[in-house]
């Protein structure tokens, strides 16, 4: 009994352990450069948008679905902020939020009501978003209104992030909604047979995802100052890396923890930032991140566990007389 709880504890602290090890490795590798207050602040600021975006995707993936449209949604939201913000910054922010929620609703309805497999449906949404942006932005990027730059401070962004993440955690752990999300991820049929409104919950997850993506777009927009075709384009992959590094169980939603997107996002940027400081080229960085992602997903996959089981049983049967 004690042994099991030990494994459980290890499982729980693994993402934190990975983060600490990475911090130490880069501290040594950059001779302490990565640990300066300025650099820590940079990493924290960078990871904020990713935290929100991956917290949204977290809800969707906990139900067992996939969202491949996050980059596109963020790009469209950022563009809305810039274009409508030209007329009125407040209206820009409101419309940006509305756009995010509507795109989430669109994803939700297509996947959950019309039952198009989520990875296909959201891939299409991503393409639609890219298509829209190519049409509207054409060659030049749209500028985010200058008045919004004043929000690009630590003092505003940190509380905002904290409030949103606490709300998300409360929703996930304390409201019945969060339990329903996990139940659907664990066994959708059983959830349906237990009178849980599966379709409604799934649509809501996408709406939450869209809303958080919109706020992420706001953070990205006021930091970069422009909405271009490339805005948010690396987000899709970073969200996957963040969730993986945060210990998100890709096999099923029941064991999902909301610490995954938070810790994972931070780890992702510690990794990027550390490699940058050590002078790793961006091409090599993509390679390393991709390889890391693949490696962790494989190591935590059921296939790997089956493989190790098979090897150990084979050893056992070989040792039999």
């Amino acid at each position, binding site marked *: 009994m004690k042994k099991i709880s030990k494994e459980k504890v290890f499982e729980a602290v693994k993402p934190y352990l990975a983060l600490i090890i990475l911090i130490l490795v880069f501290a040594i590798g950059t001779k302490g450069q990565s640990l300066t207050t300025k650099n820590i602040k940079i990493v924290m600021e960078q990871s904020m948008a990713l935290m929100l975006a991956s917290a949204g995707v977290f809800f969707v993936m906990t139900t067992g679905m996939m969202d491949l449209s996050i980059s596109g949604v963020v790009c469209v939201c950022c563009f809305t902020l810039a274009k409508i913000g030209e007329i009125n910054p407040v209206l820009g922010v409101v419309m940006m939020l509305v756009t995010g929620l509507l795109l989430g609703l669109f994803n939700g309805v297509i996947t959950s009501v019309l039952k198009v497999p989520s990875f296909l449906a959201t891939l299409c949404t991503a393409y639609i978003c890219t298509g829209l942006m190519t049409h509207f932005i054409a060659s030049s990027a749209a500028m985010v209104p200058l008045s919004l730059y004043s929000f690009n401070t630590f003092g505003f962004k940190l509380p905002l992030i904290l409030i949103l993440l606490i709300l998300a955690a409360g929703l996930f*752990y304390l*409201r*019945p909604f969060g*339990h329903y999300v996990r139940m659907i991820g664990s*066994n959708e049929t059983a959830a349906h*047979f*237990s*009178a849980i409104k599966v379709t409604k919950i799934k649509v809501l997850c996408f709406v939450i995802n869209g809303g958080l993506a919109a706020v992420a777009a706001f953070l990205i927009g006021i930091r970069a100052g422009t909405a271009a075709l490339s805005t948010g384009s690396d987000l899709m992959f970073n969200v996957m890396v963040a969730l993986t590094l945060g210990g998100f169980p890709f096999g099923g939603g*029941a064991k999902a923890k909301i610490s995954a997107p938070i810790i994972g996002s931070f780890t992702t940027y510690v990794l990027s930032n550390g490699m940058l400081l050590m002078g790793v080229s961006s091409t090599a960085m993509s390679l390393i991140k991709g390889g890391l992602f693949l490696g962790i997903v494989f190591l935590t996959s059921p296939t790997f566990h089956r493989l190790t089981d098979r090897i150990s049983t084979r050893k056992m049967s070989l040792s039999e007389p």
Partner: protein
Amino acid sequence: MSEKVLVQVKDVYKHFGATKAVDGVSIEVNKGEICGLVGENGSGKSTLLSLLSGIQRRDKGEIILEGKPYNPKNLTDANKHGVSMIVQEANTIKGLTVAENMFLGIEDEFTKHGIRNIKMMNALARERLDAIGLKDINEKDDVIYYSMEQRKLIELVKAATIKPKLLMIDETSTALSQTGRDELYRLIRNTKERGDSVLLISHDLQEVLNLCDRIIVMRDGKIVSEVKSAEIDETGLKNLMVGRTVSGGYYREDYDTKISDEVVMKVRNLKAGKRIKDVSFDLHKGEILGFGGLSESGMHELGKAIFGIEYDVTGSVTLENGDEIKTIDDSVKHDIGYISKNRDSESLFNQMDINDNIAATCLEKIGSKGFVTAKKRRAFAEEQSKVLNIKMKDVEQLAGTLSGGNKQKVVLTKWIARGTEIFIMDSPTRGIDVGVKAIIYGMLDDLRKQGKSLIIISEELLELIGMCDRIIILKDGEISGEFARSRELGEETLVQCMV
């Protein structure tokens, strides 16, 4: 002696968690012998056969086939060793044609240069089907178009095709009509005449006595007796099977309980999907109403249709107060609960804790102002888990790590905790060992006494006879018989209605 022995099972064990399905069994089957295997449900007969046919692996012990150690990896591997089995449930593969099913695993015989000669295969299948007079089965059709009985017959033809040294038959006759049975008996006798052996499981003791040379009796995973058929009669066999353990307390004992006149649910002209054609009945307060039939009779779909799961349902399900049930939501709002026969895939959240499972339908109830803390959930689950005495470490144990019986207790608790008034249970004791079965039967009886109404759908006729106030038999989606609770009611009467 050893010349005569075909297969020798030496001290074989197979445990499923705490359940000792096969517990130190040693038997021998001689060449040219028809050997009967009898015992109550859950006595380990089917498990023993599944060990011999490679469907499952034994934990311990030795099996020797014609003097050589025999370790079948799966059914196909067993076939190659000359061992074949007709299983209890339909074993034909939907989506394949009759001919493809018949030659499953031995397609290579029709294959030249990587190309399968379908014409030759069909022709041979036709020949075999004609040989036993199955003229209305077309070898080119998908098996899906045929009834349960016809599929069983296709399996019989398949078994005859392989000409196995050891033919094992697991409770097949209940699914067959008289002509089908005659065909089965002919196959068994042919096998014997060839000098090969048969191992037969059947609940029809008269059939076993007529066919077999020797009868092996199993109880609680052990061999309790071996007798020559000529030296025993049906009553003697029954006494051996039942032993001392069963007397009393297993099923309900009352026979004169009057069913209340109060109707809690009215089902009228229900028609759903392809299986259910026209079903009407009333469910009374405090009644256990049983539904029996062959697996394909539509009874499993009926449970889902009443609960609101199946689509395109016509007809009506109305409650006492006139409210109509159309969706799962309606059902649960009106305190109706459904327990699926597929426990792991449709009822349980295996990767979640026991407390998550128990609280699944009550989260809004136990919370205050819409917030449910883990502490509240745990306390609620701890309280509720006492009702059925779930054997667990604590409520934070993963539900998937429980035994089948305890999983079922968790599922039952989920609905009991909600204050469910009408239970729809599909195969409530499927795959559950004898001990937990008794607890579940006790629970059903308690629920009945509390005035709850229960619909039990089951393929185990003894269970229906033992537990129900009324039994309705379905055949091809329609009611083919209704029986009141009585001491005299026997399996045979119900089977007559089923086929």
